[in-house]
């Protein structure tokens, strides 16, 4: 009868024992022919199993570059987006910025009236005047009143135009007169300068002669 093996010979065969356990098994093997026979049978079994070699693969596994491995474009983007935390955080931040910028830009306004809810963007426009009803809906008297109103409005428009033209004319005349005045002033200044020059020249010609006495003598 085979003596009791301190540790399982199968663990010894598969190298699953630590150094101390292996030493105990080896000591037992050296003393027990039955244990050696058992270990031989295990080794034969292992060798028999390993005698059947691996087969070559019939055809190569498709590589990543092959279509079978190629994820869809959306899936690639989605995986790349979710699998990169910094990109995801940046994307979220950028999205929020765009969202707030959009809200700031379009300034959505929600109003409610009898027609229901209305969404408007930008500044709310002033209410438009109700368009005039069709002409056929008026009788002759109403049409006459309407034509008078239009004529009065036209008259007011013409008066306004004349007023504008007159004001422009007055402004133009005032500008022209001012220019004439300036011209006259400049010419007067030039004449006075010539007079002063001639007076000075005469004084030099008569020497220390007094113009006033000369005038008086000539009167005499």
């Amino acid at each position, binding site marked *: 009868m085979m003596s009791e093996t301190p540790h*399982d010979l*199968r*663990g010894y065969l*598969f190298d*699953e024992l630590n150094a101390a356990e292996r030493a105990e098994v080896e000591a037992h093997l050296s003393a027990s022919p039955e244990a050696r026979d058992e270990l*031989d*049978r*295990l080794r*034969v*079994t*292992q060798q*028999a*199993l*390993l*005698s*059947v070699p*691996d*087969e*070559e*693969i*019939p*055809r*190569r*596994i*498709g*590589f*990543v*570059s092959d279509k*079978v*491995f190629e*994820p869809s474009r959306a899936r690639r983007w989605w*995986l790349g987006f979710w*699998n990169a935390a910094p990109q995801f955080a940046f994307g979220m931040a950028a999205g929020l910025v765009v969202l707030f910028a959009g809200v700031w830009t379009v300034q959505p306004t929600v109003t409610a009236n009898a027609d229901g809810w209305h969404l408007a963007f930008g500044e709310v426009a002033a209410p438009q005047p109700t368009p005039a009803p069709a002409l056929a809906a008026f009788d002759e008297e109403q049409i006459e009143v309407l034509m008078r109103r239009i004529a009065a409005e036209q008259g007011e428009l013409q008066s306004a135009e004349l007023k504008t033209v007159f004001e422009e004319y007055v402004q133009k005349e005032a500008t022209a007169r001012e220019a004439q005045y300036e011209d006259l002033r400049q010419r007067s200044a030039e004449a006075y300068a010539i007079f002063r020059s001639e007076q000075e020249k005469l004084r030099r010609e008569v020497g220390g002669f007094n113009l006033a006495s000369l005038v008086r003598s000539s009167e005499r």
Partner: protein
Amino acid sequence: MIFREVEDRDLVLRAREGDVDSFNILVSRWEKKVYNYLLRAVRDREDALDLCQETFLKSYRSLRSLQDPARFPQWLFRIAHNESVSLFRKRRFESDEEVPEQGTGWLVGIAGTRIQHLDLGLAVEKALASLSPEQREVVILKIYQGFKFDEIAEIVSSPASTVKSRLYTALDVLKGVLAPVAPPQRVGAREV
């Protein structure tokens, strides 16, 4: 072996960054081992090839879920294991075929005879076929792939003690077929 592990880890890291060539190298390196593991497990070449393709496809798509790139082989074989389990379930559902349990039945006839070398491959194949799928798988992972008990436990999602029990039971069955005890010599018998 350590150098090989470092290489695998680097390739995984590069593949994660989008380097498809690195993943192609991993495929080239592991396709034969995964294929043979699946072939011995499911015992059908076409099924093994399909499952192998599916294994690498899933591994590529979920590469970022691999927490420790150095454990790529265990992770890869775990995916292959799940694929084979799915196939067994599908087969069972489709054909309701009984999976042979521990092999003592028709293989008993082989025991007690000397197995010739030419017959060895067939004998091994039959011996493995006599095991339950769970037993056969741990034998393949241990004998052919060389994984440790804790690594096999990780691959098949079972405790290491269960893995050890399955393997030892399977090994006793295989030993009885492939290394039978020689019949006792009769005293005075003459060799022919």
